[in-house]
């Protein structure tokens, strides 16, 4: 051990005692106290914090649900009904958990949209983006496993359809499927292992989230103008500014999710899942959870089993290489006059795919799904590489403070030239 190690000194002797043995206090002070946030960050930058809070809420409500849930095909459905009717506040736990899952995806989708639009995935945050896509994959797996547990009709048939995707793999597919299910079809062995995995995966997510946050703190957060922090005037400390801002966002989010939990807890639920699982009857329309519907639409748009499965997984895997498909050095779409519109088109397209993914795959809906599929992959393989090449980005501000000098100074200074903005005044004070 290095004897010359500098130990941070605090006024409180207890803190000093801990700090000497485990420098965790200075770590938290550095990462969550003094951590510089670009001062132009808007509320889009609160969704990472919201996602973390939702993850913790899901883990806590899930642990309490598990205390009353029975992972057996004969008892699972009834144990969930018992949670709803007899367990004290069981209904609240379950509605928090089921709607929390939906809101978790809403938040994470907004978080991803933010990262894509403002180019947060670009140098030097590529690894951060990759970790984020991993989290997204783990979330999809976890939500799928969890949706099986109530053992309703949608649970059973959703599990059947998704596990059958693996049987499309040539040669080993059938064997792999049987191995995953522990049976020749979805049964008790499947329900048991899905419960075990659904319990453990959120903790894996929690670990990857830790890496994701640690990685973003190395080079700092991106911002709406996509330019780096150059001086202290470009940033504010995480505490108290960002903490307070995230708290405001959390309050707004709390109001939104409470409205759903208390006044429309089944808005996002499927009626068929209140019918106990029946292996002999398939519901007329198997509908995935809405947050997985865009990928389901891609699966159904392809009239070939293996092709559909490959494109569906490809639609997620392609996200990993986005930082290398985009050749433009400009991060924020605010300064990319052409790509900006293609990017917004991508978001609308993703939404449309999700919409038709919830409807039967026929006629116009199937056509929309196919056009949407073409745009989805065209966006990554053609538009993203080539627009970066031909597009002439608009002029970037010199610094983050410069953004305010342009936008705010004329109002404060009565439009007169030469009157420094508050930011610039601070500059001169340094």
């Amino acid at each position, binding site marked *: 051990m290095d004897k010359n190690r500098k130990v941070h000194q605090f006024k409180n002797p207890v803190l000093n005692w801990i700090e000497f043995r485990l420098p965790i206090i200075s770590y938290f002070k550095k990462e969550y106290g003094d951590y510089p946030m670009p001062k132009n960050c808007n509320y889009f930058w609160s969704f990472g914090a919201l996602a973390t809070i939702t993850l913790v809420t899901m883990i806590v409500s899930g642990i309490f649900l598990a205390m009353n849930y029975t992972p057996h095909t004969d008892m699972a459905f009834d144990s969930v009904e018992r949670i709803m009717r007899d367990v004290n506040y069981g209904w609240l736990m379950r509605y928090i958990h089921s709607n929390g899952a939906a809101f978790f995806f809403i938040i994470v989708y907004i978080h991803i949209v933010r990262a894509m639009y403002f180019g947060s995935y670009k140098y030097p945050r590529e690894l951060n983006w990759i970790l984020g896509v991993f989290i997204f994959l783990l979330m999809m797996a976890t939500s799928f496993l969890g949706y099986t547990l109530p053992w309703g009709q949608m649970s059973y048939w959703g599990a059947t359809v998704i596990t059958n995707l693996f049987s499309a793999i040539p040669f080993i597919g059938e064997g792999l499927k049987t191995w995953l299910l522990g049976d020749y079809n979805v049964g008790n062995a499947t329900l048991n292992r899905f419960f075990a995995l659904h319990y453990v995966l959120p903790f894996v997510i929690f670990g990857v989230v830790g890496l994701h946050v640690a990685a973003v703190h190395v080079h700092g957060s991106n911002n709406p103008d996509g330019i780096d922090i150059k001086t202290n005037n470009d940033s504010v400390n995480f505490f108290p500014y960002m903490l307070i801002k995230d708290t405001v966002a959390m309050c707004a989010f709390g109001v939104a999710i409470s409205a759903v939990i208390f006044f429309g807890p089944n808005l996002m639920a499927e009626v068929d899942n209140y019918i106990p699982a029946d292996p002999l009857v398939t519901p007329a329309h198997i509908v995935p959870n809405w947050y997985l519907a865009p990928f389901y639409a891609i699966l159904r748009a392809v009239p070939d*089993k293996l092709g559909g499965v490959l494109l569906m997984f490809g639609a997620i895997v392609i996200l990993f290489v986005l930082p290398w498909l985009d050749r433009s050095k400009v991060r924020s779409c605010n300064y990319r006059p052409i790509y900006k519109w293609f990017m917004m088109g991508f978001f609308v397209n993703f939404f449309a795919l999700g919409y038709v993914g919830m409807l039967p795959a026929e006629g116009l809906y199937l056509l929309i799904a196919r056009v949407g599929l073409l745009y989805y992959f065209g966006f990554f393989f053609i538009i993203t590489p080539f627009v970066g090449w031909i597009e002439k980005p608009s002029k970037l501000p010199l610094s983050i403070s410069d953004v305010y000098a342009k936008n705010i100074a004329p109002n404060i200074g009565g439009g007169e030239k030469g009157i420094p903005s508050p930011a610039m005044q601070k500059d001169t004070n340094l």
Partner: protein
Amino acid sequence: MAKKPKNKRRDFLQLSTVTLGAVGTAAFIWPFLKSMSPAEDTLAAGSTEVDISAIEEGQSITIKWRGKPVFIKKRTKDEIDAAKMVQASDLRDPQDDADRVQKEEWLVLVGVCTHLGCVPLGQKVSDMKGEYDGWYCPCHGSHYDTSGRIRKGPAPKNLDVPPYTFLNDNTIKIG
């Protein structure tokens, strides 16, 4: 020069230790992976005997075998003719009707769509039977004919025929 052989000895020891460690780890992982495969009692799920004397011509029943639905249909003359008329070579999964039945009026199928595992409609009179008047899978729109062969839609294969034997004219043993 005395140094070289010594290094070689060390390299050998290092390599053999790592190899042994890797093999040992793999051997240790195997029981865990294997424990996820179907258990002995699952594999032992036996056979089912079905009384078919009450099935009328054109009627179809669904029974459960190894957790899966099995369709037993007594086909009408028209349905048999329709199934026989098709050239096997025109099909996605070429198979003659004669290869799919033991007695031509009795069609026995595993009622699981070969696309993603849904149960196709067509067992009840009121069900949609698809464009080929056999079965229709509502999940992703696969159409099967009166021999349970895939004719249209995303499914890659015909509906499976389970192993079965006629114990007598009125009883089928499936499995």
